[in-house]
C-alpha cells in the first residue's frame, strides 16, 4: 500500500527547518573545526598560519596522545557496559515491583537531572581520601583509597561518576522496553517449565535487543564526547595521565590552554573514531538485533 503526495516540494519544505538547524548548529561548526585543524593561530586570532598536517603529525608522534587513546577506550567501554548492566538490572527489578512502583521509578530517574559537573563534585566529596564517607568506609575494610596517587582508583572514580548519571537514562528506556514485552510470552515459557533466569536470557533479553543496541550507541557517544565536565570536576585528568581521555584533552587544550589548532585536530580525530565505531556497530552488532 502506498500513499501518494501530490505536492513535489511540500516534503522538502517540511524538512527545511530540521535541515537548517542541522546545517547551522552541526555541519557548520564541524566544518570550522576541520578547517581550524590545518592552522596554527594565537589565541586572539591576530595572526594565523597554514601548517598543513602539522597539528596531526604532532599528535601521532606523541606517546601521550596514544596513552589518552587507550585511556579513552578503557573509560568509554567501562562506562557504557556498567551503565547498561546496572540500568538493566534495576529495570528488571523495578518491573517486578507492584506496590509503590511510581515512587521507586521516579527516584531512579532523578539523577538524570543533575548536571555532569555537579555529579562529579558530588562523587569527589564522597571519595575524598581524607574526609569522604566512602573513602573512610573503604579504609575501615582495609582498602587504602587515594585516587590522587593511584591511577586505577582515579579511573574507577571517574567511571562511577560518569556512569551514575547515565544509569537513569538507560533505566527509563529499559523499563519501557520491558513493559512492552507481552506477558503471555513469559507466562507461556513459565508454563513450559523455564525458570526466571532462563526466561530472562531466552525471552526477555532478546526481545530487549533493539533497546539495548540503541542504548549502546548512545552511551558510547556520551562516554566519548560528554564526560569532560565530570573529569574536570573530579581528577582533572590525573594522577599522571591516568584519566586524561581524548575529549578531556580537546577541552583542556582548546578552552583552557587556548591551543585551538591542536584542539581542532584532536576533535577531528575523535569525530573519525566515533564515526567508524558507529558504522561498525550498525554493520555488525545490529545484525544480531531482533526487531
Amino acid at each position, binding site marked *: 500500500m502506498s500513499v501518494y503526495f501530490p505536492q513535489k516540494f511540500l516534503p522538502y519544505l517540511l524538512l527545511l527547518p530540521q535541515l537548517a538547524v542541522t546545517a547551522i548548529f552541526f555541519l557548520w561548526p564541524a566544518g570550522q573545526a576541520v578547517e581550524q585543524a590545518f592552522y*596554527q*593561530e*594565537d*589565541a*586572539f*586570532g*591576530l*595572526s594565523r*598560519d597554514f601548517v598543513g598536517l602539522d597539528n596531526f603529525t604532532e599528535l601521532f608522534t606523541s606517546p*601521550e596522545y596514544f596513552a589518552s587513546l587507550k585511556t579513552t577506550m578503557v573509560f568509554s567501554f567501562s562506562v557504557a557496559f556498567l551503565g547498561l548492566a546496572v540500568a538493566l538490572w534495576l529495570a528488571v527489578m523495578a518491573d517486578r515491583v507492584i506496590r509503590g512502583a511510581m515512587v521507586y521509578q521516579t527516584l531512579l530517574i532523578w539523577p538524570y537531572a543533575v548536571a555532569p559537573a555537579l555529579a562529579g563534585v558530588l562523587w569527589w566529596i564522597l571519595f*575524598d*581520601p*581524607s*574526609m569522604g564517607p566512602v573513602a573512610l568506609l573503604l579504609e575501615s575494610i582495609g582498602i587504602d583509597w587515594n585516587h*590522587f*596517587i*593511584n*591511577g586505577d582508583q582515579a579511573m574507577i572514580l571517574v567511571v562511577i561518576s560518569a556512569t551514575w548519571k547515565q544509569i537513569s537514562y538507560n533505566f527509563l528506556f529499559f523499563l519501557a522496553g520491558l513493559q512492552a514485552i507481552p506477558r503471555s510470552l513469559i507466562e507461556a515459557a513459565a508454563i513450559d517449565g523455564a525458570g526466571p533466569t532462563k526466561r530472562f536470557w531466552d525471552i526477555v533479553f532478546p526481545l530487549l535487543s533493539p533497546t539495548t543496541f540503541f542504548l549502546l550507541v548512545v552511551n558510547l557517544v556520551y562516554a566519548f564526547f560528554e564526560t569532560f565536565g565530570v573529569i574536570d570536576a573530579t581528577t*582533572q*585528568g*590525573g*594522577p*599522571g*595521565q591516568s584519566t586524561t581521555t581524548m575529549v578531556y584533552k580537546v577541552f*583542556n*587544550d582548546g*578552552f*583552557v*590552554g*587556548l*591551543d585551538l*589548532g591542536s584542539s581542532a585536530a584532536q576533535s577531528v580525530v575523535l569525530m573519525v573514531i566515533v564515526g567508524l565505531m558507529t558504522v561498525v556497530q550498525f554493520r555488525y552488532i545490529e545484525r544480531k538485533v531482533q526487531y
Partner: protein
Amino acid sequence: MNKLALVSTAVGLAVSGSAFSATQIEWWHAMGGANGEKVVEMAEAFNQAQDAYEVKPVYKGNYTETMTSAIAAFRAKQQPALVQVFEVGTASMMAAEGAIYPVYKLMRETGQPFIQDDYLSAVTGYYTDEDGNMLSMPFNSSTPVLYYNKEQFEKAGVSAPKTWQEMETVSQKLLDSGVECGFTTSWQSWIQLENFSARHNIPFATQANGFAGMDTEFVFNSPAQVAHIEKMREWQQNGIFSYGGRRSDSAPKFYSQECSMFMGSSAGYAGMKRNATFDFGVAQLPYDADQIETPQNTIIGGASLWVLQGKNEEQYQGVATFLNFLSRADMQADWHQFSGYLPITQAAYELTKGQGFYAANPGTDVAIKQMTSVEPTENSKGLRLGNFVQIRDIINEELEAVWAGDKTAQAALDAAAERGNALLRKFEKAND
C-alpha cells in the same frame, strides 16, 4: 491619572537620562562568592563618587572561563574594556600586542596621574615589560605561605620550620607525637618548583624566566630542584609529606588534622579561618639552607586587570580614572583586609598597619614580609611563559609519577622540561 502618567514619564526620563549621559565601561571579572560581592561594591563606590562614567562589573566564571570568554569576545569584536586575567595567562596577553592597551601607556595618553614607584615592585614585577613598564594593573595577588596546626605543634613541642632541613626534623617529631603526616602542598608546580626556584634565586627557565624573550627553555631540571623533588619523593614514602591532589584539593588533609602543615596561597587565609576547627599559625615558605643564606622573595599568583583595544577615547579616560580609583590606599587596604590578597601599593600596606589590622590578625602580614624583604631578582620577578596552563598540567602529571614512585625526580623533571619546551616552541611559532 494624567498626573501620575506625567510623573512616571518624568521619572523614566530622568532615570534613562542619567544612565545615558554616563559612559559605560564593562569590567569582566572572575571573582565569585564574597569576593565577587566586594567587586560589585567597589564598582558601585566608583559610580557614586563621580557621574561621568559607569563601571559595570560582569562575573564571567572562573579564571579560565573569564579569559576564554574575553578572547572569544575580542574575536567577535564585542570585548569589554577591562578584563581580569590570571597570572599564567600573562604571556598570552602580552604576546597579543594588537589586542591589549598597556596600562602605563593608557595612563600617559589619558593624562592620569600615575607614579609607578608607588606600587610594590614585588607585585608589579610580574606584569612589567623588559623596560619596567607596567602592562596591566595588579588586582588580586597572593603568594604561597606555610600554614601550621598550632595545637599539634605544641603537643610535639616544635615551632614552625624556617628551612627545608628543619621541615624534616619538625615533621619527624610530629609523626612521633602521633600525627599521620607532616605536610602537604597545594598547587605543586607553583609552590614546589616555580616558587622554590625563585626563593633560591635560581632560574626556572632561560631568558630571565621568559621576560627577555620567547626563545626561552626550561631549566627546572637542574640539580637544586631535582634534589628537592627527590627529597619530597622520599618523604612521600615515609609519611613526612603526603600528596593530596592538584590545585587546592589537599586542603582537607590539613582541615581534618591528618597533616600538620599545609603550603598554600596567602589568599586562602579567610577560608582557612572558616574551615580549621583548631588554632593555626602562618609562617614563611621554607628554604634550603644549603642553597641560599638569605632567601629570595617568592613570586605571586592571582590575577591582574588588562585593558583591551577597540574602545573610544572617552571610555579609556574612564578606565584610567577607575584604575586610579582602585589603587587608592583606602580602596586597596579595604580589599586587602577583606580578601587576604596582597596590597599593591606601599601606602595601602602602611594604612593597614596603622589601622592595627596585622596586630589583630596575626599571620596576615607574613606574605607581605616574605615578598618585600629583599629586592626581586630576575629569577624571582615572575614567569612569562606561553602555553603555561598546559605546561603546568604536564608538570602535574610528571610530579604525580614521582609521588606514586613510578619515576625518579630526575627522570620526571627531564621529561617535563622536554614536553614543556615543545609547547614553548609552539607558542613562539604561533606568536612570531
